[in-house]
């Protein structure tokens, strides 16, 4: 473990992800505004929103328990941890072996459970409603997510995200049919897990449709800022997992510092494309009824299983 540059890079990378995450949200919002013929907000608007929220005085319900106050920090910590595991710029992450893809899914589950518990803490009807819906989406998305990741794990013979990315980045450019299935499944899980259209609408406060927003209704000021920030990191982490699994080209290898600028440019291009794609999806699709979410996510699960079976059948 005497890998000082590695550890330094590890810390730098996770800080970079934490700081850059709101930028991706800003970019998606900007693209969506363009697509919808609106004049776009500034790319930096999420940062200004966070700064505004941090400066405000927090208001909290009288019945709140310590769990409610602690949850925003736990969410932020979980997402920061996730940001540390995912290879974004390089695969040289000395900390990554501490948590493989199954543990990564576990981190997201931990965050989900805490946010659902905090939502039920105040005892308003909205909190419970949001928690129930969030857990519904969560239990549907988690098996699909694991199946997608298992397909990649079978291809590379490892559940370490860094090893998977190393293996996938070094294959010759052939289309793996199993990965194609897995990629579609992963995209569907990404939309569901990050409370995007068509499963949830991040911009709505309509009680009939909101899921994630219903859970955080009681939060304000710095607590809300931390949650919003954690949500941005989660989106960033999911998009970079997708990039790492399905388009890993250009990522820097262990010890190869000169490749970092290229990796950085490649990442910026890929993120820009992914953000534009997300905005496109959110523009052309409408939100599904809540009880169509099981169908949506079981489709994702079936696609992931198909991908895995394809891998066993054609070995690719």
């Amino acid at each position, binding site marked *: 473990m005497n890998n000082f540059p590695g550890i330094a890079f590890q810390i730098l990378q996770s800080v970079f992800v934490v700081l850059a995450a709101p930028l991706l949200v800003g970019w998606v919002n900007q693209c969506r505004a363009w697509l919808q013929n609106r004049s776009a907000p500034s790319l930096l608007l999420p940062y200004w929103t966070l700064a505004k929220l941090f400066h405000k005085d927090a208001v909290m319900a*009288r019945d709140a328990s310590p769990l409610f106050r602690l949850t925003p920090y*736990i969410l*932020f910590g979980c997402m920061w941890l996730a940001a540390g595991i995912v290879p974004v710029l390089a695969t040289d992450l000395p900390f990554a072996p501490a*948590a493989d893809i199954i543990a990564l899914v576990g981190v997201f589950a931990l965050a989900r459970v805490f946010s659902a518990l905090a939502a*039920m803490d105040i005892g*308003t009807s909205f909190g419970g409603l949001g928690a129930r819906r969030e*857990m519904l989406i969560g239990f549907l998305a988690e098996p699909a997510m694991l199946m997608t990741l298992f397909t990649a794990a079978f291809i590379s013979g490892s*559940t370490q995200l860094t*090893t998977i990315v190393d293996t996938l980045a070094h294959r010759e450019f052939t289309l793996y049919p199993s990965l194609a299935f897995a990629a579609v499944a992963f995209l569907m899980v990404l939309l569901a897990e990050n409370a995007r259209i068509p499963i949830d609408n991040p911009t709505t406060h309509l009680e009939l449709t909101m899921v994630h927003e219903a859970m955080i209704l009681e939060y304000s000021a*710095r607590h809300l800022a931390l949650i919003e920030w954690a949500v941005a990191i989660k989106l960033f982490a999911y998009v970079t997992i997708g990039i790492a699994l399905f388009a890993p080209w250009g990522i820097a290898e262990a010890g190869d510092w000169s490749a970092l600028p290229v990796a950085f440019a490649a990442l910026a291009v890929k993120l820009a494309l992914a953000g534009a794609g997300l905005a496109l999806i959110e523009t052309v699709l409408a939100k599904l009824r809540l009880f169509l979410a099981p169908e949506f996510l079981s489709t994702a699960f079936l696609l992931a299983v198909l991908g895995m079976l394809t891998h066993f059948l054609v070995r690719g």
Partner: protein
Amino acid sequence: MEAISSPLAGSLIVAVFWLVIAALGLAPAHNAAFTRRFAFPLGALAGLVLAAFGLQAVWLPAQTLTLPLGLPDLPFHLRVDPLAGFFLMLLGSVSAGISVYAAGYFRAEPSGRLALINLQYHVFLASMAFVLLADDAYLFMVAWETMALSSYFLVITDHKLPAIRSAGFLYLLIAHLGAIAILLCFGVLHGGRGDYSFEALRAAQLQPAWATAAFLLAFFGFGAKAGMIPLHAWLPEAHPAAPSPVSALMSGIMIKTAIYGMVRVIFDLIGNVRWEWGMVVLAIGAATTLFGVLYALMQHDLKRLLAYHSVENIGIILLGLGMSMVFIGFGHPAAGVLGLIAGLYHTLNHAVFKGLLFLGAGSILHSTGMRNLNDMGGLVHSMPKTAFYFLIGALAISALPPLNGFVSEWLTFQAALQAPLLQNGVVRSLLPLFAATLALAGALTAMCFVKVYGIAFLGRPREPTHRTPVPHGGDASGMERYGMAWLAAGCFVLGLFPTSFLLMLNRIGVSLTGQGLSEQALESSWLWLVPTAAEEASYSPVIFLVVIVAVTALAFLLVRRFYHGRLRFADPWDCGFPEQTSRMQDTADAFGQPIRHVFGPLYRMQRDLPGPDDPAPRYFLKIEDHHWYWLYLPVARAAEFVSSKIALLQHGRISIYLLYSFLTLIALLVFVR
């Protein structure tokens, strides 16, 4: 002296000591303080000693001992090997926490009843120890039946309630069906040769067909005790009926003796495991897992809900064991040992966190008199310490890192990911699907415990609809808290230091299959959990916990440093509707509504939605188990029909019975000659 400190003699002494405590409790029958202050704490201490001996036994070669007790020419054989040692450790360490808790829990019991509870409780513990120590079918069955009977009497502690009597009857019935199957299994293994010592049964060479018959008998016989479907029906009835420490004991430990029996008979006595058997175990395990958690989500009685989760967790254990059998059957003992380790690790984990959760449920019951989740709410304010321990148990059972439930599910996933080793294409692609079942069950468990914790502990108190007199209303008492703290610490230790347990369980794998995990897995340091090879998979719960605590604390400090900690308290937002009451919070039934929507056909549902003009609207929902109507009731009706026909023979007149004897004699003379 050496003999006394050996694990076998030590465990035997502890078991006998439990019997002595049981008997002593009877002597000063009017002195409840004796039982509370001495019997239960001493029993807990003995449990710790037993755990130490069990731990020692895992690392030593097998020891045997013959006791000149029992029938003439049928002495009791005792033996302790790594497998038995591991389960002795489980029994000792988990029962220690539960016994300490019981010392506090039974404080309001009248002395006569308490003496009886003490008797049955410690006989129950001792009989479980003898089940684990037995080395012949005779002692095993004696101990097994003692265990069933003593737990039956514990279940019907409140025997004045008819519901509890019928729950006890159902338990006894299914326990005996299982016992018959186990007895027949020993008969098949014995095959009319030699004696009934496990040594002889192990040496017997069986035809494949007979071996499969023995496997099926052992699997369903022990499965009845473990609570796998379709033999689970007693579990959600009997566990809630018993006093909470007994529920913890039954759910945490007793159903694990069935897992012990399965591993002992299938891996050890029958031997030559076939992969087809593994597929049977996997199929039933997956069904048990899903079914258990889906029904748990529908419960609003806290203890019934926990009982259904025991069904689910038995399924998870069976998934591990089944994978192990598949790999061993195909000739991959290293992967097989990994599956076995995953299953056994989950056995220990489930004992710890389910014990903790049942104890927490007991404290709620004691403090508020409530078992129905729909009546609870806001308990975190009135019982903060119980709420803390319960949260640990809830996170552990939901398989969230870095607690213990996650480790065993992680190991099960890793076992499933060894699937490419298998030669058979169908089995190879089925194995990850079983892993997907596990993922689904894990996520559903998380949902279920969000429901339990959110509704019972968080939110605001709901108006109780039918309130029993409240005993005291405060937090759990000191002894109760020590018991829960012990098990909660277990959740952390098992979750944070899995490598030492991995090495321990590997010993069991070596002793049963002759092979163990790969060199690389065994050489990894305590910090890293590596099941196969470091580049394939690794997990470090300590680093995980340290990082998550560090970044959470860092976030907290940064926010405080750069901004401020100003906070105002106000009423919650009323959504523009000021007449909100605490009755408008989600209930346990409401929380399960999406599940009913998605998995509707799996439930037998009776629902009554009031119309919009109903002046006194009352929502009614009743969820029942399909198994009752598809399996149990038809079987019960058939049994009733057959016995009513047989009853025609009974007339109660001596002359008719003499006629029967005469006819039998004639028939025998004709056929036998």
